[in-house]
């Protein structure tokens, strides 16, 4: 079954076609890689999935339901969350508060319950705290619990963004260059973590990454974008041997050799 489906999606900004007539499917429980040079339209695809941009043409399906007309928060509540290329944490809040805030959708109590501090409020609030604590542990952030997000090291901030996204119990997680700014060692650890997260939470992942070799290791399927057009998709092997990709993307690197 496909968890996500793009059908002839186009996004234009004025005269610029950021994404042109792109179709692809992400299989449930898989890790799907999205690669391409700068300005290829990768982040734009994430913004289209999460409803931040409205598509110009085409259709997007999530679990076989159209989602391209929904507002961002509705899409998130359906089970798609993401991280941002240029980290967007709640900067002045602590690690714990960042995660706890994101857990909100696991509770249903209303404002009146909160003002009366009744049974419903206390019970659900306790669950939220337990969930935040658990996520902090899984992502290895427990020792950073009370540190203000903007004071965390870069790598930790990226982890915190993942933790925050997982707080919604998503079934599809979108990671926009999660390894940017990390050294090779950290990056390998991160890739391991991504695999673990997939197992532990039973979700599907789409990951954007610049480092080709990294993405080849973790992804079940990869799509290559170039100037907003789909160049190719398939397994890591297919991509590496695809002449079009070699020409447009890997070709440059070969010249250096």
């Amino acid at each position: 079954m496909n968890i996500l489906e793009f059908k002839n999606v186009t996004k234009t900004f004025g005269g610029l076609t950021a994404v042109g007539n792109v179709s692809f499917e992400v299989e449930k429980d898989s890790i799907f890689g999205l690669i391409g040079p700068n300005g290829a339209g990768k982040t734009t695809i994430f913004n289209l999935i999460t409803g931040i941009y409205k598509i110009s043409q085409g259709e997007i399906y999530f679990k076989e339901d159209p989602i391209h007309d929904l507002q961002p928060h509705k899409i998130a509540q359906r089970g798609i969350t993401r991280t941002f290329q240029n980290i967007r944490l709640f900067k002045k809040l602590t690690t714990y508060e960042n995660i706890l805030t994101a857990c909100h959708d696991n509770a249903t109590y209303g404002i009146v319950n909160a003002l009366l501090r009744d049974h419903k409020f206390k019970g659900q609030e306790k669950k939220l705290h337990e969930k935040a604590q658990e996520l902090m542990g899984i992502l290895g952030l427990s020792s950073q619990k009370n540190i203000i997000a903007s004071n965390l090291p870069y790598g930790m901030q990226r982890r915190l963004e993942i933790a925050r996204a997982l707080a919604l119990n998503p079934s599809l997680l979108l990671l926009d260059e999660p390894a940017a700014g990390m050294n090779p060692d950290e990056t390998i650890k991160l890739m391991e973590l991504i695999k673990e997260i997939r197992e532990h939470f039973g979700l599907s992942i789409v990951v954007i990454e610049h480092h080709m070799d990294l993405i080849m290791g973790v992804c079940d399927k990869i799509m290559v974008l170039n100037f907003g057009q789909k160049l190719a998709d398939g397994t890591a092997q297919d991509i590496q041997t695809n002449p079009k990709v070699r020409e447009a993307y890997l070709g440059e690197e070969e010249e250096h050799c």
Partner: protein
Amino acid sequence: MNWFYIKGILILSGINLLAVLGLSLLTGFTGLFSFGHAGFMAIGAYTTAVMTIHFHLPFMVALGVGGLAAALASLIIGKLTLNLKGDYFCIATLGLGEAIRLILDNVQYFGGARGWPGIPLHTSLLNVFIIDVVGIVFLAFLIRSRHGRNMIAIREEELASQIIGIDVFKYKMKSLMISALYAGVAGGLYGHYLGFLQPKMFQIIKSTELTIIVIFGGLGSISGSALGAVILTALPEALRSFDKWRLVVYGAAVIFIMISRPQGLMGGYEITPTNIKCFLFRFVKKDKKHQGMGGR
């Protein structure tokens, strides 16, 4: 200084405190600036007066009606403007505040621009104090719930809030309505303290004063807002003997705080029993360290 005079200042501080608490939720915790809160106070003040004078409702019930009327007005203005990005909301509230005042100026039923005398003096130090305490407790409870956390998230990073499933529009609306409710009740108390209402009392200067107090006290701090309201209401009164210079001193005090503590008096911190303990503990520790170093 006699007790009557001091009591008057305390009541005025208490009324301002309530309006500031409401604005604190909107500006300090949700990140939306409003320059029309005097308008919501005016709606509350006039509605409450109509309820006690013409409908003979008990004061507390009338205050509730006044607060709800202000919240209702905020619902309408919110529906129209909260979808707009950035500063438009702020500008819209500015227009709203002035519009309400101009309408009241021309409605002869409420005495028009000349004012409305003979409002019963129901406001006392006791009922202001009780309402303030309830207002503070409710706000603190709200902030420490998922609803309050969602509002803070919107203040911090609106886009990320949407991505974690927060309905930004709905939460801005909730924040605005609760905020207007507080302002409306404060307006009702104000009219029944002075015994007289005039649209001029709810000019843009009043809105600005409330915003200054919230910033002075520190954005995102309930205790800061409360402290700021009391200090900045009492200060001009305490300085009455300086005559013309008092407003200069007031302005200088505000500027001084803004320069020396740009984050405001409390700067996002709260006065809670645990925080006081932590603070004192740190103080004691520092002291001991000092002694040790001196001994050497």
